[in-house]
């Protein structure tokens, strides 16, 4: 899109326009101010020309001809009429046909008021219908998934939903059925439309045929307030529009952001707002008095915390206080926390990655960092990391499109079958823990076709932790191999928490100063902090939206540390595993309850906006920290998110110019940092070598799923039931040997621990591997060692 396409001249309704050659007429007209009505055409999908609403007349040697503007590319000198009597007549006819069998239930239809059919019937329609026969009738709405309802009477058969699930999300579970006048959209019996992306079909349905259970009947479009923001579940920060009414969020709608999500959202990003209004939100500060947490007011809470931190600081210095977290908030929050740590507490022990991420050095290294849009430009895309469909849905859709529509070479390396395998040109799998051996084989040419693909001119390597047993170094080694072989390799390291990049940029890592500068004397990371708490070397801990017990692959040190800690304070939205018995809890404002900026996985800064008040007296992190500072006798002078952003843009070169104003007025798609932020943080050379493939006959694959028991989902009634729960997947060929049938309960034992899981016989996991999704309600921690024993529980 960057290089200027060659233009051709088309004359639309008498006016000549220069438009990109090969562009579809409907798009060219639209970009030049002529709207051609349409139902089936969608800018992000291949045209089908089914609804025929976009008929226009063009002049040909054989006289005027009617064509569909959505299926015919512009040609030089093309003369087009979109509003002459012939066209108007055709449009009226199409609308009368569409309405012939369409129910007149607009008053009770969710789409009423924002319905293209309704609008276009008014704008281009014939008035009233001459259809006197009985309308087609179907059983009223049927649930085709846990989130989506289908009303076939309203469907106008535009094939948007079927194309989306087939072409875009790659799970063709909703399809046309029967033919002609009987044609309907439907699923296969007992095989629901269980797609992680089903909500998009609701958004693009041009009528009210597909509706979302979480939104149904909740409001009418005309009394919705609409505010743009970005989703904070997905590391790509897909752009959304928040629709609210009387301060209550009713739904998110995907916004077509060219740089990130193309308008698509995973169902988690689309429906993941219910937790904000949860009963369980923390509403007031609480302090522990004789064993129980009791509510107090802010002045009292701040006074108690300030006094205690002051004391510890005077006795043992700031070093005795550590801070974990800060990657779930805004950059402004992170900046405040960073200054609080350095200027108020004076501690280097700060870690936003909670010990379950790639090394902060690797994440912070900025050379050859890939942009999401680089995926479209690459010759070869390497994905060696988590199943993108499960952990990075926006990237999943982008990579899928690149492979399917743009014909890119795609290499997928993962222990099990991933959502991208059906589009991969090369797929390699390995036994969890054995990634380094496979990598050596690849670089020594054992899989020559893969090595060849990796030696292309432009390679984008998307690397992360595919399986807990892989550890953090493998991804760096993979990146190194990619850089060795490719003409030019760009690396996209995958992290977990939505604003990890923002947190690192603000210096929330033991080895980083703000602006991705190396810290002269590094502090401790999460794991070390926990040990130091245990040994007493560190006395107090501040948890900022962090739950190390739930997140750390091996939670034992975390448990020891938290139990031994002398004093623990938690800033959070909810009570979670880690902060259940801390000394002080300070209620924080959550997403959409505060303004601010965030930095996505490619370094793109976008602005979040406020649409609802925080519950009770909950406040933004930065405000809490500012008050706490002054209680302790310091002044951070933080007045508002906007002024903090300004301060960031002035004090951190990477963020130069990235102010709220800039994001609101100039950089609508966000601003990418570091543009040329002048940081010298390079990749460290790493060994390709690493741990050997485990010899054990059964090994354990642990990875995250889109839906899990994270505290935000736990408090989202529509989504939480979709989590797989405590299950273990076993390959069909291993099942008999283990005496396993689906649904039998298995005892899974590792060096670390043991737990009971429901068995799922599943050929998506390779033989000799058992797969346990992480972070499931009631699922035991199994640690990082892949060696595992499995037996039927009886």
């Amino acid at each position, binding site marked *: 899109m960057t290089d200027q396409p060659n233009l051709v001249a088309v004359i639309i309704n008498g006016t000549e326009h220069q438009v990109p050659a090969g562009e579809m007429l409907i798009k060219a007209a639209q970009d030049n101010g002529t709207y051609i009505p349409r139902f089936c055409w969608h800018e992000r999908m291949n045209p089908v020309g089914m609804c025929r609403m976009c008929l226009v007349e063009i002049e040909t040697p054989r006289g005027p001809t009617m064509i569909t503007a959505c299926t015919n590319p512009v040609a030089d000198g093309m003369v087009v009429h979109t509003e002459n009597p012939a066209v108007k007549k055709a449009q009226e006819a199409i609308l009368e046909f569409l309405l012939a069998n369409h129910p007149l239930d607009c008053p009770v239809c969710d789409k009423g008021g924002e319905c293209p059919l309704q609008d276009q019937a008014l704008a281009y329609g014939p008035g009233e219908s001459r259809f006197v026969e009985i309308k087609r009738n179907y059983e009223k709405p049927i649930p085709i998934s846990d989130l989506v309802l289908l009303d076939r009477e309203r469907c106008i058969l535009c094939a948007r939903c079927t194309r989306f699930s087939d072409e875009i999300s790659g*799970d*063709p*579970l*909703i*399809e*046309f*059925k*029967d*033919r002609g006048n009987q044609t309907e959209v*439907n*699923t*296969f*019996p*007992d*095989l629901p439309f269980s797609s992680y992306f089903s909500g998009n079909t609701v958004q693009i349905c041009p009528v009210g045929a597909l509706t979302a259970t979480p939104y149904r009947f909740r409001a009418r479009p005309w009394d919705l307030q609409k505010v743009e923001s970005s989703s904070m579940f997905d590391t790509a920060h897909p752009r959304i529009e928040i629709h609210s009414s009387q301060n209550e969020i009713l739904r998110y709608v995907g916004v077509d952001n060219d740089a990130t999500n193309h308008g698509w959202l995973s169902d988690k990003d689309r429906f993941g707002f219910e937790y904000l209004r949860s009963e369980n939100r923390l509403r007031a500060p609480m302090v522990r008095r004789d064993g129980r947490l009791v509510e107090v007011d802010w002045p009292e809470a701040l006074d108690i915390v300030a006094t205690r931190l002051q004391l510890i600081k005077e006795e043992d210095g700031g070093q005795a206080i550590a801070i974990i977290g800060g990657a779930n908030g805004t950059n402004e929050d992170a900046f405040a926390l960073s200054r609080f740590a350095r200027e108020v507490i004076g501690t280097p022990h700060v870690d936003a990655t909670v010990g379950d991420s790639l090394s902060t050095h690797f994440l912070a290294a900025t050379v050859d960092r890939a942009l999401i849009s680089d995926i479209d430009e690459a010759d070869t895309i390497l994905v060696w990391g988590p199943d993108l469909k499960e952990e990075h849905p926006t990237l999943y859709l982008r990579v899928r499109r690149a492979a399917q529509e743009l014909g890119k070479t795609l290499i997928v390396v993962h222990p099990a079958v991933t959502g991208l395998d059906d589009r991969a040109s090369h797929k390699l799998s390995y036994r969890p823990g054995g990634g380094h051996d496979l990598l050596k084989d690849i670089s020594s040419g054992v899989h020559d076709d893969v090595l060849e693909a990796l030696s292309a001119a432009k390679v984008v390597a998307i690397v992360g932790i595919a399986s807990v047993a892989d550890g953090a170094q493998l991804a760096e080694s993979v990146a190194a191999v990619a850089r060795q072989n490719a003409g030019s390799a760009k690396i996209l390291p995958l992290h977990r928490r939505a604003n990890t990049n923002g947190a690192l940029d603000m210096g929330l890592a033991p080895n980083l100063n703000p602006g991705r500068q190396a810290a002269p004397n590094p502090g401790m990371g999460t794991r070390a902090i926990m040990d130091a708490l245990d040994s007493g070397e560190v006395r107090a801990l501040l948890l900022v939206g962090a739950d190390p017990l739930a997140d750390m692959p091996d939670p034992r040190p975390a448990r020891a540390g938290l139990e031994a800690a002398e004093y623990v304070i938690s800033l959070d939205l909810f009570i979670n595993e880690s902060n259940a018995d801390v000394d002080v809890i300070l209620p924080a404002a959550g997403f959409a309850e505060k303004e601010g900026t965030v930095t996505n996985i490619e370094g793109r800064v976008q602005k979040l906006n406020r649409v609802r008040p925080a519950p009770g007296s909950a406040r933004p992190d930065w405000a809490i920290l500012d008050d706490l500072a002054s209680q302790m006798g310091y002044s951070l002078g933080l007045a508002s998110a906007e002024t903090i952003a300004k301060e960031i843009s002035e004090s951190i070169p990477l963020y130069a110019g990235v102010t709220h104003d800039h994001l609101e007025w100039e950089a609508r798609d966000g601003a990418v940092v570091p543009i040329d932020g002048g940081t010298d943080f390079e990749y460290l050379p790493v060994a390709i070598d690493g741990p050997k493939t485990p010899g054990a006959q059964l090994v354990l694959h642990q990875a995250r799923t889109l839906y899990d028991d994270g505290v935000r989902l736990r408090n989202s009634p529509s989504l939480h039931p979709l989590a797989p729960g405590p299950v273990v997947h076993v390959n*069909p060929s291993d099942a008999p040997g283990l005496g396993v049938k689906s649904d039998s309960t298995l005892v899974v034992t590792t060096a670390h621990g043991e737990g009971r899981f429901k068995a799922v016989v599943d050929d998506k996991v390779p033989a000799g591997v058992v797969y346990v999704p992480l972070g499931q309600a009631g699922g035991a921690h199994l640690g990082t060692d892949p060696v595992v024993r499995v037996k039927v529980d009886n």
Partner: protein
Amino acid sequence: MSHWSEATQERARQIISRYPEKRSAVMPLLYLAMAEEGHLTNEGMEEVAVWCGITPAQVQSVASFYTMYKRERTGRYLVSCCTSISCMLLGGDDVLHAVEDESGVPHGETDDEGLLSVEHVECIGACGGAPAVQVNYELIEGVTPEKARELVNWLKKAKPEVVNTDEMQQLFGGGRSFDWAITEEGGAVGPYPAFQPLGTVKTEADS
């Protein structure tokens, strides 16, 4: 993990090998699924999905597009009466009503014993021998309402293992679209076409 007979699976492999891409085999495999169970069941469609590497929803989408993949319980004899223009001009509707009346089975339905299904169909390419009727797609041309009633009773009583177009033409037919010249053995055993690659062509001897 197929629940098809080994013979059917072998046929499926052969059929797939006749096409450059396995998805192209979806239509013949749908007939195999019908031959296996008498009509097209959900299990049948799931099976075809596995063979062709597509989802059951995609298989259903294809199967439901065509009229010959019967997804409801269908009789051993499917009687299809043509009521398109040429047959209608020469009394096709009367033939249909005679069949419905004699069998007691209305259009689109199947009797309780699962013996007869009756449907009226669009043009079956026998306009020169109108009105035309098919039993399990084996053709009879020049059928009168009276002959149609006889046909129904014959099917009910004789319950032929194999229905053969030449035999039925002799018993119940009249004028034909063209000279059939010779008679041949072999015919259909169920409500799906008798065609060698499907293994559905049977003679009385076979059964």
